[in-house]
Structures are given as structure tokens and as C-alpha cells.
């Protein structure tokens, strides 16, 4: 009986050791994970995301400028020339990024950040006023636009709440943010082209 009791105690001790080891390993794993996801002291994670976004936008604008080379921006009484310029410009941009996909500029990290920036404004003190202005501005609903698609002729452009624009990263001349249906799109203005989009932005923040 004594021997068997002694074995039982040893087994219990071994089980306890095992549990402690598992718990320690778990703690270590969590600590490592936190260390990886938490920025080092002094580094603002959003600033890093912002820098990455700015770089992607700047890269796009380089491509935009290259595509513009050789095209003459018309100032004309002939609206057909304006349309032709727009189509040629869009075609040259598409040719330079034929495989462009949603998320290339609005990466998942950038999209998360934008969700937070928009939520800050929409749920802030003036959120109700901004939502009211937004709703009164003939919001575009029931439409999805793909990257590299032209903004449809005749479809109104949703006006953007100024307070929201002031909370989003500033864009270079020639690019703009617009809400289209449930998406926030990045639009190339002179080429009238969808450059990228974040899905489900308005749905999560303006209701």
C-alpha cells in the first residue's frame, strides 16, 4: 500500500510538473505574440501604417505621372476632346497596372486604420450632424466598383463630409476619397479611375 501510494504521489507530481510546463509554454507564447504585435516604446504603430500608405500612394502617383507623359491635358470648348483624354489616360494607367487588385494601397492594416479613423469621426461629438449631412447628400447605394474600373458616366459623386476628410490622410492632387455604396474608394480624378477600395466602410460606421 505504501509503495502504491508513493507511486501515486509521484504520478501526481509528474502531472503537476506537466501542467506547469504547459502553462509556462502558453505564457511564453502569449508574451512572444504580444511582443511581436506591440510596437516598441516610442514607435507609433498608426504612424508606421500611415507612412506605408503614403508610400503606396506616392508609388501610384509616379505611375500616374508616367501615364500622363505624352498626353496633352485639354482646355477646350470641345467636350469630346475631354472625354477622349480621360479615356486615353485611364487606358494608359490600366496598361501599367493590369493586375491591380483591391488591397494594394488599402492593405488590410491600412483598411483597419481607416475604419478606426472614420469611426472616430462618425461616433464623435458631431457624428450625428455628419451622418445627417451624409444622408442628405444623395448617397450612392447598391453599386460596387472594381479596381481599374471607370467611375460610371452619369452617376453622381457622393460629396464627402469635410470633418471626415480632415481626419483622413491628405492625398496628392489628382486623387480623392469617395464613398460608393458600402465602399470607400480611392479615385484618380483626371483619369476617372478606381485605384483601390475599402469594403464595408459606410455600413459599419454611418448607421
Amino acid at each position, binding site marked *: 500500500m505504501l509503495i502504491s501510494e508513493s507511486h501515486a504521489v509521484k504520478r501526481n507530481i509528474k502531472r503537476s510538473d506537466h501542467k506547469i510546463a504547459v502553462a509556462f509554454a502558453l505564457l511564453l507564447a502569449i508574451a512572444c505574440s504580444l511582443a511581436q504585435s506591440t510596437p516598441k516604446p516610442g514607435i507609433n504603430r498608426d504612424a508606421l501604417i500611415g507612412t506605408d500608405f503614403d508610400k503606396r500612394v506616392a508609388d501610384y502617383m509616379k505611375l500616374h505621372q508616367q501615364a500622363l507623359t505624352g498626353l496633352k491635358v485639354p482646355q477646350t470648348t470641345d467636350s469630346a476632346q475631354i472625354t477622349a483624354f480621360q479615356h486615353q489616360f485611364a487606358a494608359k494607367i490600366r496598361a501599367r497596372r493590369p493586375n491591380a487588385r483591391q488591397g494594394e494601397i488599402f492593405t488590410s492594416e491600412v483598411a483597419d486604420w481607416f475604419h478606426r479613423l472614420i469611426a472616430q469621426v462618425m461616433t464623435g461629438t458631431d457624428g450625428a450632424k455628419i451622418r445627417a*449631412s451624409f444622408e442628405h447628400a444623395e448617397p450612392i447605394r447598391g453599386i460596387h466598383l472594381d479596381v481599374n474600373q471607370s467611375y460610371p458616366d452619369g452617376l453622381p459623386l457622393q460629396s464627402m463630409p*469635410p470633418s471626415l476628410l480632415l481626419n483622413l490622410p491628405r492625398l496628392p*492632387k489628382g486623387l480623392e476619397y469617395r464613398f460608393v455604396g458600402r465602399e470607400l474608394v480611392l479615385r484618380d480624378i483626371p483619369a*476617372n479611375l478606381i485605384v483601390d477600395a475599402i469594403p464595408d466602410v459606410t455600413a459599419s460606421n454611418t448607421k
Partner: protein
Amino acid sequence: MTLRLLFFIPVVFVASLLPGCRTGPAAASSRFLQQSTSGGESKLDVKLPLEKGSVRFAVIGDNGTGDSPEYEIAQEMETYRKTVGFDFVAMMGDNIYGGHKPKDFERKFEEPYKPLLDSGVKFYACLGNHDDSNEVLYKPFNMNGQHYYSFKKGDVQFFVLDSNYMDSAQLDWIEQQLSGSNAKWKIAYFHHPLYSDGRFHGPDLDLRKQLMPIFEKYGLNVVLSGHEHVYERFKPEEGIYFFLVGNSGELRYHNLRPGSDIMAAGFDTDRTFMLIEISGDKLYFQTIARTGQTVDSGTLQRQPKPQVSSQAAQ
């Protein structure tokens, strides 16, 4: 409220003499001016003084439908131009509704306003939510490729804004332009109204929050807008006069909210355009419906520059 209002000289509202035209809280229960069926037969009734050297222009908004009411307003404008002699038109946006193919530019702009264009009248457009951004390249709109710009006529400087996209770059530009302007009259115009009694849209409160502090600080005198498909004139806010002309093509019949405390006059039963004459410290206005009937007119006195900025500068 600023000290400017201490110097406020009451506006002479000729409109108050018109039957059924709302002119303030006292008339809050009155009817809006109803369109006269015989208005088209009446002779030209110019309410402007037509002073020598004055700045004269017309105002249209939400006009670019290509439908017959737009053409009829354009025809009425040409009739008045022959007497009034205005040489430019301020466009409040939604210049071209729907498609923007060459035939749209013809049918919704070039054809209706051909007599005015042929007479050398210039059009200065701002962008509405129905406009294509590339309208900035269309020469007859005189935007010179810019979404927001400024131009000067005599003592009057105009600041034409893009209210669809009021970002920090544009706000900085407005502040810079207004602070550097020594024009006697400063007039801003853009599509979305800061004040409106229209049921369909209402005022853009977020835009108002961003723009009003700048307008007040630099002594803007007049704001013109469109978007709401009615005509409305407001009581001055912080010494600034506000007009809404959004029915020069489109119309939302009986869309004005009754019982408004901010409305000075309103008209929502037909299309209109405005004529404005500025001479010295006075602004004369006349709003004319499709049939030629004057639905609102009056004289406004320029408000003194705000005291706040000069005190702050000392």
C-alpha cells in the same frame, strides 16, 4: 454674434410687398408666392438701378437638365440681358445632369445658353454632385482646370469652391485667398447650402462648421449656393447674406419647410434665376421666374469688416 451686426442696416425688402411671399417670422404663416399664369405676358420689370460702372451678373443653379424649363429660363435671361447688360453668369453647380457625352454638353448647356454665349456672356461654374470632375477642363465654364478658383470683377472678388470635397488643402486655400483679398465685396459660391429650408436636403451642417469661422473672420459678404431645388433668401447670419438658387432647371415643388425662422423669402413653385448688381456699398438683387415674374427683389447694404480680426491684430 460679432460687432458687425451693430452696424447692420435693415434690408429694404421689396419682396415684402409681394403677395404671398414669405419675408420673415412675422409672415411665417403666409403662403409662398404663387406663380402667376399671366406672368409671361407682363412687360419687363427691371428692379435694378443699372448704375454706371456697377458689376452686374446673373446666378443660376441646378440648371443642366436639358429639359424645356432650362431653355425657358435661359430665354428669359437673354431677354433681361438686353436691358440689364450683365456680362457673366455664376453657376451654382449641377451644370450637366446625367451623362457627360458631347451631346449632353450641347443639349444641357451650349444650346439653351447659345444667345448668351453668342453675346459674349461668360459663365463661371462650380461643381455640383451631379457634375463630372473633368468639367473643370471645359473652357466655357472658365474653371481653368481648377476645382476651386477666384476671379475679380470691379470691386467684387468671387471665391468659387468645390463643396463636394472640402479637404484641408481647399480650406487652407480659402483662408489664404480671403486673408489676402482687399476687394470691397467678397462673394463665395459653391453647390451645397450652409442654410436651407428645403425638405429634401436641408443645410450641410458639417460644411457650415468648417466654413463659417473662416467666412466670419475675413469678412465675407455674400454666399450663393444651389443643390436644393428651390429659391430661398435668408436673414443675414453673422453679417453675411445667404442666397440659395437651385431651381434654374430642376424644381422640387412645394419643398420649402413652413415656419422657418431663418428664411427672408422663398419660392418653390417654379424655376428661377437671379440678377445681381453691385455698386459702391449696395447690392441690388432681383429673382425672376420662368414666366418673367419677379418673385423677390431688394437692396442689401455691405456690412463693415469684422472688428474681431483688427483687434486681434493689434
